[in-house]
């Protein structure tokens, strides 16, 4: 399908008009099949002869049809039994079955919820008297394959999946390159030429440690022999002692923004403590903690949110930031961030384009039902704990309301695969512990992170949104994504290995300039990306901030981490505003608009960066005894990571020659 619907329509109708592809009359074929397929009448259906479909005969043996009819009959009987079981009335109910479209009462009295549950903190979607949770209803859209709802607990074996052996880094990179080449050949694209060393150096600094290189770092890199220099730089940025802090800070910023947003944990009434989460992340990243372990700790965490408090555990701040009137935000964020499955839409209704049903959202949400928050007396610290959960009915189900008013029940089940127990007792079944294990061993976990990291490097992931990898969201390079995910898992979820593979891939080394041979590779215009060139994009606010610090000569590295973060938050706070919606989204004015321009031009940090009185690049250049071309070259490399062209140098020389105050002119140029 092309991106312009008009073209799709014109193309298909031209095919009909010129290519003689006329619409067929299918009435009799459909009616024949329709009359044969009434499954509630097995006697007639089992005796029907096999039917022919369209122009492609599909032979179906009588034996198969008998088997299908028998299966349908068994399923229908099982459904009947199941519906009878789960349609029992609630205590005190009036015994009537809720019908479609009937107005439903909406609240379950407090005494019917678990007595141990802190209702002032977390309220659940309740059932009401006279309503029968677990009513089996058909799928909203017949084309979807929806799982059967109901309190069916499957006994599951949770543990590591079989993985392939890890192969050497170079082999992984070669495989990545081969997959990319295959795509280019298949799409008849010729990739762009190689980026210059200076271009590549700038982008690898930005992607790996979140700032541009200094002129010295750039000069050192471009003056090295070409063979192996890129690999050496990647190793230095990932493993070098001089960069470990910057690496950890950069990725702490990224993960913090992803988990709780740029404004999360900063307001007085926030339960989450941003500093605590950042400390947990920074320590995890400095120690290169395996990604699956980090995710497990975030999801299963209990303890206090504030550094220095008793039972402190910074990991709790992710879930604390998700706590509101219910736990649906925790469910939505867990599924989108760690599993690449965006479920917000199905929270309220079955989504037409999602294969995940509303029931599955609430089944996952049930894993968070034991979560509760308490505040220690006389402190500001919040503590995340697990408490026994009871719905007041059969035990551990949670309730939700369908768009038609029916209230249904959901027990913990991981993406429709079930759970080891239905109990709400923590001693019997720690729900978050199980969820953390399920996520940890899920095949979605490595795929989601690979997609996210690829998106971080290229501006476009393998799917149109890295938070949305459902079956309705096509993957641009399924084999490449699969290979990387498998090896990421085989390398024990080593994040640095993944960063290494992507940053040394051919795609990352290509120029952003496109030619006539790959003009079609335009994901910015909505096309599926082929990564035949490097896609340009704006720097992220954190990258701009860190780069400005660098050129301004502000050395925050000597300050405590918390103070560095506070200064950064203050600066970023000028551009970000939290939106009070149920997905805790944020709006950013860091998009090249007037507000950003004014702040950037007039803010104190920019003043510092452009003042000759500071210790930044400009002061260094002015104080040096370099000849003019050398000074101009240094400023170019420090700001935009390239040497000036001959034309640019000539113009600057002419301007300086005619200037009364050459230093002021250089400041203007800077």
């Amino acid at each position: 399908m092309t991106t312009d619907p008009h073209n799709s329509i014109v193309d298909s109708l031209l095919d009909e008009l010129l290519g003689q592809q006329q619409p067929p009359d299918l009435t009799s074929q459909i009616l024949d099949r329709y009359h044969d397929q009434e499954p509630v009448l097995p006697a007639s259906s089992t005796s029907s002869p096999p039917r022919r479909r369209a122009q492609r005969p599909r032979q179906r043996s009588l034996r198969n049809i008998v088997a299908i009819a028998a299966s349908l009959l068994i399923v229908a009987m099982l459904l009947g039994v199941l519906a009878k079981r789960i349609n029992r009335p609630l205590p005190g109910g009036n015994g009537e079955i809720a019908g479609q479209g009937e107005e439903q009462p909406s609240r379950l009295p407090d005494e019917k919820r678990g007595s141990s549950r802190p209702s002032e903190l977390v309220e659940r979607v309740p059932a009401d008297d006279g309503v029968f949770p677990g009513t089996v209803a058909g799928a909203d859209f017949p084309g979807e394959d929806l799982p059967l709802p109901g309190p069916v607990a499957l006994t599951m074996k949770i543990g590591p999946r079989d993985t392939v052996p890890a192969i050497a880094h170079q082999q992984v990179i070669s495989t990545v390159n081969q997959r990319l080449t295959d795509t280019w050949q298949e799409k008849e694209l010729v990739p762009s030429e190689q980026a210059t060393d200076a271009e590549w150096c700038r982008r690898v600094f930005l992607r790996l440690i979140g700032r541009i290189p200094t002129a010295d770092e750039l000069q050192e890199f471009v003056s090295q022999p070409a063979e192996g220099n890129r690999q050496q730089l990647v190793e230095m940025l990932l493993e070098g002692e001089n960069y470990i802090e910057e690496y950890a800070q950069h990725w702490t910023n990224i993960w913090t923004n992803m988990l709780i947003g740029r404004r999360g944990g900063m307001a007085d009434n926030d339960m989450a403590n941003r500093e605590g989460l950042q400390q947990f992340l920074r320590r995890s990243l400095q120690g290169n903690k395996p990604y699956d372990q980090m995710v497990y700790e975030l999801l299963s965490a209990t303890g206090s949110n504030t550094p220095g408090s008793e039972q402190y555990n910074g990991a709790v701040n992710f879930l604390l930031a998700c706590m509101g009137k219910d736990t649906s935000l925790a469910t939505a964020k867990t599924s989108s961030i760690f599993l690449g499955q965006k479920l917000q839409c199905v929270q309220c209704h079955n989504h037409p384009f999602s294969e995940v049903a509303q029931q599955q959202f609430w089944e996952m949400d049930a894993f968070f039902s034991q979560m509760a928050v308490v505040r220690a007396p006389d402190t500001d610290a919040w503590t995340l704990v697990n408490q026994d959960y009871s719905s007041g009915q059969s035990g551990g189900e949670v309730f939700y309301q369908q768009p038609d008013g029916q209230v249904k029940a959901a027990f913990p089940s991981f993406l429709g695969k079930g759970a080891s127990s239905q109990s709400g007792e923590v001693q019997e079944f720690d729900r978050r512990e199980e969820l953390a294990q399920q996520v940890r061993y899920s095949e979605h976990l490595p795929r989601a992170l690979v997609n996210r990291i690829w998106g971080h490097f290229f501006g476009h992931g393998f799917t149109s949104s890295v938070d949305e990898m459902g079956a309705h969201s096509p993957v641009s390079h399924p084999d490449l994504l699969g290979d990387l995910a498998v090896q990421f898992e085989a390398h024990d979820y080593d994040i640095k290995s993944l960063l290494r593979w992507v940053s040394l891939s051919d795609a990352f080394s290509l120029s952003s300039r496109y030619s006539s041979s790959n003009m079609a590779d335009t994901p910015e215009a909505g096309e599926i990306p082929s990564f035949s060139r490097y896609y340009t994009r704006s720097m992220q606010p954190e990258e701009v901030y860190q780069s400005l610090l660098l050129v301004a000569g502000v050395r925050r590295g000597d300050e405590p981490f918390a103070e560095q973060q506070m200064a950064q938050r203050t600066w970023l706070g000028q551009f970000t505003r939290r939106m009070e919606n149920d997905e805790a989204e944020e709006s950013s004015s860091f998009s090249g608009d007037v507000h950003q321009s004014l702040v950037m031009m007039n803010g104190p940090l920019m003043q510092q960066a452009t003042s000759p009185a500071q210790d930044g690049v400009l002061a260094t250049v002015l104080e040096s005894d370099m000849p003019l071309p050398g000074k101009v070259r240094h400023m170019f490399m420090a700001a935009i990571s390239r040497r000036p062209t001959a034309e640019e140098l000539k113009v600057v020389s002419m301007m300086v020659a005619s200037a009364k105050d050459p230093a002021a002119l250089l400041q203007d140029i800077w």
Partner: protein
Amino acid sequence: MSTASPHDAADFDPRVLIEQHQVGIWRYLRVLGCDAVLAEDLTQETFLTVLRKPFEVYSEAATAAYLRRVAYNLFISHRRRSRKETLVEDIDELNITWDRWAGQDNGDQLVENLRECLELLSERARGALEMRFQQRLRRLEIARSLEITEHGAKNLMQRAKKQLRQCVEGKMQ
């Protein structure tokens, strides 16, 4: 509003439903990118899927939209099984455009308008489209035949289709 099902609605005739909507669904599936045979298969599946369950008849337009949604879901399921990529982000726009252009009569008038608009094209442009859609020639072969570059052939066909689109839109007003 009435509820129709295979079992309880005496006045519901599946034949009428199929006859009224099959051409529109087939054309819609072709627009989604199905070849003729796949469109035929999925058209059948669409009606069978709908007829298996009770559904509510609000109006012809609502029924057509509902059938298209089912057809779309089946199309996506097919693509998923075939492990093929499908861009879904512009489906809403496509549906709106299809509704506006062809929603009233399954696209019959649209086809007629397009036939008339084709006659208004230059001989060269129409010839290029005929080579592409009638003779199934590749762009390079079309370019050679017209003694232009491949890029030129692409531009020629794109311009022709743009003219067709404008002409069709003009006839809609």
